[in-house]
Every structure is written in structure tokens, then in C-alpha cells.
């Protein structure tokens, strides 16, 4: 689409300011099932998100049709929307910041250049390794996915920004079986440097975890000490991240409302948003509104330091945007709970009677970001006198996320970037209700 033409037509029709956000994504996905290529996908898609201000209201149009002949339709629709919108929010198109951080480690040219045959071979090696690892290995799938995302932002206030990042994940999913039971295992590694994909290490972890879970049974319903693995905590933090959004706070939908500078977690809890994280395809030097992104602590040693803001929420609270205006609302870039000093083994050993939870499921329905309550399916190991006794499955663990932050007594040194895009260590929590047999 001819952007100059879009801008001048908008101005002729009375749109005071307009912004386009162009996204160009390419993807390669490969899956190997039982030694053969089961999925091979390539794609290249472009889209434009166009936001225009008319009578101080914001209309939005997203299009994958990029021909000039839809320009009038786009502008007319934006104007029609703006006429009906009666929200009291200001409509702001941003003129830009003085400085944007230069990020040179989020796009790795070598990743895209690497021959696809090498990627396929690595997956096949992993498949073979898993099959030969143990005779109880029943079904094996290995997968690789690689994304490049280029973003260009232009507006009538003179802003013209560009960001390009790429990333890949490689991992596997297995089903293991013995006479009595069947268990699954899954994990991925995320990086934009192919050399980081130590497939034997991750394959071994996936296999060991699945095999160790064979014979898992519920424990009696009771309150137990809990250690969440880094992966299990990632699911929880990801499900509750909206509590940090100033938009949620202003709409009375966050339990952190009115808690700025108050203690909301134990001293051991520090949660940051790091938009400059290396090797993350989410990393950005500017948000969707054109505001420079910034590293910031949301919770610092247990104290709530700031909410996440976009231009509109910041103006309402009379603060500056934190550079978290994404997707028409507010979101973190790379949410990270800082690692602590404890070893996972020491945390497990410190429990008299507890559960080491390796995975929680069903967070999309069983975790309520407004009330903070969760009750989720969990699996892991029963721990007695500091020792791992047996695998556990089909239990639920219930609690309130905000209460839980206060009850964290140990934080692991094992921070890991998860599939959900958040980085978390394992943690120990005082006691939580578990439902089982």
C-alpha cells in the first residue's frame, strides 16, 4: 500500500492523525514423526494495523489486503468507528522519543541462512536418540519452528521506526508406556542461535521426566508444601500477567489496584519486564504506539514498583508510558521473575511432606486473572522427609496468585525462558490445598 497516499487521503477526509504499523512475518515449521517428516510449513504474511484519530476518538482497521484500492474503505471505516466511540479515553498518536535503544542481538542472520537440511537432520537425530533411549518409548515427535518478524511503524507526527527479530524453538513430545500406565513428556528450547540447541540434553530431560511419571497416582487431599518447577511457575505467571496492566487496574479488574509501593510479595520476589532480552523474538526497542521500551522492575524485593502503561493509561494516571502499548492494550514484552540462590534439589530436600509440581494445566479456564484465584490440574512428585517418593498425577492445586507471591520462601537459581515467553525460576511455597484421592 502507498502509505503517503493513505496519509493524504486521511487528511482530506478530516482524520487529524494516522499511524500504520506494518508487520511482515515469515515462518518455517518442521515436525518429525516416527523418523519421517510429518509437517513442513513455510509462510510469509504481511499485515497493516491502521489507527486514525477523528474528533479525538481512535478508529482501528487491520488488513492483509494491501492494495491501494481499499484506502477509502479503510479511512471511511475508521471515521465511522470514531463517530460511535464514546469512551472518555484520549486518542493519541505519538511524536516519538529522543532515543531508541539499538538492539543488535535479536536478529541472527545465520539462523535463517542455515540450510534447512541441517535443521531436519538435527530433528531426525533427536528422534533417533529418543527412540533408542528406552524401550518404553512409544510415540515420538520432534519439532522445530523459526520466525522472523519485521515491524515498521510510521505516522503523521513524523515517526518512522523499524525493528527486526528472529527466534526459533526446537523440542520434542513423547508418550511412554509400560504394562499399566501411559505418560507424556514435552519441552522446547528457545533461541535464535542454532548452536544453542543441545538436543541430547533436552531430549534426555523430556524422556527422563516422562519415564519417571509412569505409575503416577493422586495423593490424598490435604494441604502440602509445594515446590513449583520453573516450567509450572511460567504457566502461572503467564496466566496472571494482566494484574500488572494499568488498563486492568483502571477498570477495577486487578487486585494490585491501590498497592503501588506496598509490599505485595515476599522479599525474595523480583519481577521485571526486560524488552531488551537477548535472543528473544519478542524483544523490541519501541512498542506498537512508537514509545521507546524500557527495562523496569514491576515488583522489587516484594514491593510493587510500577504498573505497565501505554499512552492512554499513563495520561489517566499522570505518569509517562512505560512503553508497553501492545495490541491496542497493555502487555509486558519479556516478563521475567529474577532467579534466586537456591538449588532445586535443596528446595525439594527442605520439604517434610510436600509435592514437587512439574506441570500445571488448564490455566486458560482455571486461573481467574481478576480474582487471582486458581485451581489447576497438576502433576509431579510426592516428597516425604526431603526425598522423592513417587510420581503424582490427577491432582489439583488451588490458591490465589497474589497470596502465593507472599508465601514464596525459596527461589531457585534455574530461570528458564518458557514456551509462553516468560522467564521463571522454580520456587518453594509454604503450603497449598491439594485435591486428590
Amino acid at each position: 500500500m502507498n502509505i503517503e497516499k493513505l496519509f493524504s487521503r486521511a487528511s482530506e477526509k478530516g482524520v487529524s492523525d494516522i499511524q500504520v504499523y506494518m508487520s511482515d512475518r515469515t515462518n518455517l515449521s518442521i515436525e518429525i514423526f516416527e523418523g519421517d517428516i510429518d509437517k513442513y510449513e513455510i509462510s510469509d504474511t504481511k499485515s497493516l494495523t491502521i489507527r486514525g484519530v477523528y474528533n479525538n476518538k481512535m478508529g482501528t482497521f487491520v488488513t492483509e489486503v494491501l492494495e491501494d484500492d481499499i484506502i477509502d474503505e479503510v479511512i471511511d471505516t475508521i471515521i465511522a468507528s470514531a463517530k460511535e466511540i464514546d469512551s472518555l479515553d484520549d486518542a493519541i498518536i505519538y511524536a516519538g522519543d529522543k532515543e531508541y535503544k539499538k538492539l543488535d542481538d535479536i536478529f541472527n542472520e545465520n539462523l535463517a541462512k542455515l540450510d534447512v537440511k541441517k535443521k531436519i537432520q538435527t530433528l531426525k537425530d533427536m528422534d533417533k536418540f529418543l527412540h533408542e533411549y528406552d524401550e518404553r518409548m512409544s510415540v515420538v515427535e520432534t519439532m522445530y519452528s523459526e520466525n522472523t518478524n519485521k515491524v515498521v511503524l510510521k505516522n503523521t507526527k513524523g515517526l518512522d521506526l523499524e525493528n527486526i527479530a528472529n527466534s526459533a524453538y526446537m523440542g520434542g513430545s513423547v508418550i511412554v508406556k509400560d504394562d499399566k500406565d501411559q505418560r507424556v513428556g514435552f519441552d522446547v528450547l528457545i533461541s535464535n542461535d542454532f548452536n544453542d540447541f543441545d538436543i541430547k540434553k533436552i531430549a534426555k530431560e523430556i524422556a527422563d521426566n516422562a519415564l519417571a511419571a509412569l505409575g503416577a497416582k493422586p495423593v490424598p487431599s490435604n494441604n502440602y508444601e509445594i515446590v513449583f518447577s520453573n516450567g509450572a511457575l511460567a504457566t502461572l505467571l503467564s496466566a496472571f500477567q494482566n494484574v500488572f496492566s494499568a488498563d486492568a487496574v483502571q477498570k477495577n479488574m486487578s487486585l494490585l489496584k491501590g498497592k503501588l509501593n506496598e509490599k505485595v510479595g515476599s522479599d525474595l520476589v523480583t519481577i521485571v519486564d526486560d524488552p531488551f532480552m537477548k535472543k528473544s523474538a519478542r524483544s523490541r526497542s519501541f512498542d506498537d504506539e512508537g514509545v521507546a521500551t524500557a527495562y523496569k522492575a514491576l515488583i522489587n524485593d516484594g514491593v510493587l514498583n510500577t504498573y505497565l502503561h501505554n499512552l492512554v493509561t499513563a495520561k489517566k494516571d499522570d505518569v509517562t508510558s512505560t512503553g508497553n502499548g501492545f495490541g491496542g492494550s497493555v502487555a509486558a514484552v519479556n516478563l521475567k521473575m529474577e532467579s534466586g540462590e537456591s538449588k532445586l534439589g535443596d528446595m525439594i530436600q527442605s520439604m517434610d511432606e510436600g509435592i514437587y509440581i512439574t506441570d500445571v494445566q488448564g490455566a486458560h479456564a482455571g486461573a481467574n486473572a481478576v480474582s487471582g484465584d486458581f485451581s489447576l490440574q497438576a502433576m509431579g512428585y510426592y516428597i516425604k522427609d526431603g526425598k522423592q517418593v513417587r510420581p503424582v498425577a490427577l491432582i489439583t492445586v488451588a490458591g490465589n496468585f497474589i497470596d502465593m507471591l507472599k508465601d514464596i520462601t525459596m527461589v531457585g537459581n534455574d530461570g528458564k525462558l518458557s514456551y509462553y515467553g516468560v522467564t521463571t525460576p522454580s520456587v518453594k511455597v509454604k503450603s497449598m490445598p491439594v485435591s486428590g484421592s
Partner: protein
Amino acid sequence: MLLEKKLIEQILDTALETGADFSEVFIENRNASVLQSVSGRLEKSNNSKSFGVGVRIAKKTQSVYAYTNSKNPDDLIKLASDLSKSFNDENKTERTPLMELEVGKKHQVKIKPNEVALKDKVKLLQKSYKAASSYDEVINQVMVYLMDDQQEVLIANSEGRFVTETRVRVRMMTSAIAADNGMMQTGSSGDGSGKGYEFFDEMDIEGHGKEAARIAKTMLYADDCPSGVMPVIINNAFGGVIFHEACGHSLEATSVAKNASVFSGKKGTKIASDIVNAIDDGTIENAWGSANYDDEGYPQQRRVLIKDGVLNSYMIDKINGRRMNEEPTGSSRRQNYKFSPTSRMSNTFIDNGDSTLEEMIKDTEYGLFAKKLGGGSVNPGNGDFNFSVMEGYMIRDGKIAEPVKGAALVGNGGDILHKIDMIANNLERQRGMCGSASGSIPADVGQPSIRVQAITVGGKKKGAK
């Protein structure tokens, strides 16, 4: 037409040049809008337009996929050619000429989304907002969403299929938050349809607004749910999500064909108690999960999944059908052109039994009445599932007692079907969005009220009666 027939044929041919035995082109043109009001004020009016082409090539059970939103003939042919390099075989498969373009005629709509003025859409939001916000003073936030979606698809393949249809869907959801004393709880209610805007004339918009507020208020003053194993009566309509999660996903060829389902190799065997009949029907007129064709271009069908407790049919797509040596069942679906299609549910439900809800409650000394369910998930690999209860009540001495919040139910799909011991006669379906391998798609869940003899209930309160 979305692309010239000649170009489609060229793409199909190019795809077969390296020895693949099947090629398919999926073209999609889509317009959607989402309106959101917060505290009665219209905050968002987002419109979107998408267009894309997906090309799939297969040889036996191996398939590859590519997509783009380019309309340029050279780009599209190059895409097919690049993709075909995955295969290398001198034996070429001859393409069957495309049949006369077949246009899907079922599921007609009266009022298309683009024929409705934005003003009139906003009035619908207002109606629900007013009903919800005036329900009670503890309601401190109400959000209403109105979505419409018009998807035009054209599907052609090397076996001569050449079909097109336009699918329209509309939906309205209201969510309310009740707050008191530093506590907050949410409730939501809504409905949707494969009809056009005429649907909102029959929908009880105020009723759903009030219902969202009622649930939020009820849950605000509810006790934490006790934990433990107990009988659970799962109410009708959205309660059917239990079958959807616990069994439906594990009956999709996606997992069955790879021997990755607890129900692999179980066709013809007893997998449920005698009183269970389960159906997946993609042909119900204007239903949320219906269509003329599946996303491989074959007619949608009605599939009896379980008959009197015996596994009767899986849901099968083309490629997994090859793996299983079975015919596809018209079950292949995808969110949009960005996904390769695979076997998915459409409108899935447990059929009526001959008990009544009243009898079930009377017959239960102690347990949980799950009146409204939230969503859930399953791991088809071993059948372990979970789902959350949005509105629950304890049952004591055959009577519904106090409301309880925060309940989750967990169990195993292979196991739970045998534990259904009563089925009522009040079958209803409800709208849902189902996420899986080929993206997020509209699907109905449904059931009459059922009783499960014993299931693990997880809540914050320590167990005991």
C-alpha cells in the same frame, strides 16, 4: 471468484510436478469486526480484513503446507514450486480436472454483518450493559463484546473438488465483575450463531446480561469449594465441555492415527457406560460449528461417535485417514489459511437419556452440582483432563445447598465415561471456541444434565462434608 480458475489449476499442477499424489488450494477472504463496551461506553470498534492462500501437497501420509497473502500469480506458482521440492519421485500422479464450481447453499443468513449500521450494533451492546449493570449494586464493572465474522472460502484439489461457501457467524458475550470488601468475582454469559444479525432478534440479550451479573454476585458470596472425590452432577448445555475435553479430542484422527490417543484401536469396543450416546454433527442448520463443507472441501457430516457405550466412529481428515486406512468423515477444519487442516469437532454432544435433573439431585446425598462450567483441556496422550466450574453448589441430602467457588474437576477420559450413571432428558447445546492443532475454531458443546459417580474436585477448602 477469489482467484481465476486457470491460476488455481496451474498451482495444483505445479505442486504435483515432483511426484506428490495430492495437491490442494485453500483461498480465504474474510471480514470481521469486534466491538467492546466498558462501563456502557463503546471503547473499541476494530475492523479487520484478511486474505490468504494455503497450498497443501501430500504423498501418502507425508504432507507439506505453505501460505501467503499475496494474490500475485507468479508468487503463488513459485510458492507451490518451492513447496513441491520436498518430494522427489518420477512417478507422477495425474490431476483430475476440476468439477463445475459447487456453491454451498445450506446455512443461509438473512442479515449480513456489513448490512448493519454500527449505530444499531452499539444499541445491542447497550441493551446487555443496562441489564447487567442494574442487576445489583455490587456489580462494579460490565464489559460487552459483539463479534461478527464473514468468511468466504474456495477449496480446490487435484482430485477434482472445487467448492465455495460463505460462512457467517455472530456472537455477543457479557462479562460482569462483582466486588465487595476487597474481593472480586466474575461472571459471564452470552450466545452466538451461524446465522446473521437476525439472530439477535431471537436472543434474550437482557437475559444474558442479567445472568452474567447474577453469576458474579453469587460467586462473590460463595464459599471456597471443598476438595476431594465426590459425585458430581454436571448441568446441561455448556456442561458438554466435559465430553468435548475428556473424550472428543481423543476421538480426533489427529491423535488416534498416531496411536497417541487412549482410544486408538478401540473402535467397536465398549468405552462408555451403556446409557451414553455421543454425536458430532456438522450439518445442523445454522449452528455455530456447522458448515456446508469441511476445510478440505468435502461435505460436513453427522457422525455417531458412541452408540450405547460402544465406540462407533472417529473424526477423520484425509491424511490421517490414509494412515488409519479409513475414509475421511468430513471433519477437517482450520482456523484460517494460516493453518493446515486436520480432524476437528463441529457440534458435539451427548444425547438425551431418560432421567430428570430433579431425580438426579434427589438421588445424591452429598456432592457437587456444577451448574455452569468454564473451559478445560485434555492431554490426548493419556486422557487426563481438567475443567473449571464457573458456578457450583454443594448438594446435601438430595437438595441443592450453598454456592461454592473456585472448583476444578480433573479425571481421565478413558475412565469417566464408564462412571456416568444418570443422564437427563434436557439436551441443550452451547457455543464455544476450541483450540487445537489447526487453530481456534467455533464449536458447539452440549449435553443433558449428567451425573458422574465419582470425580476429583479441587478447591481451596480442605475436604470433608
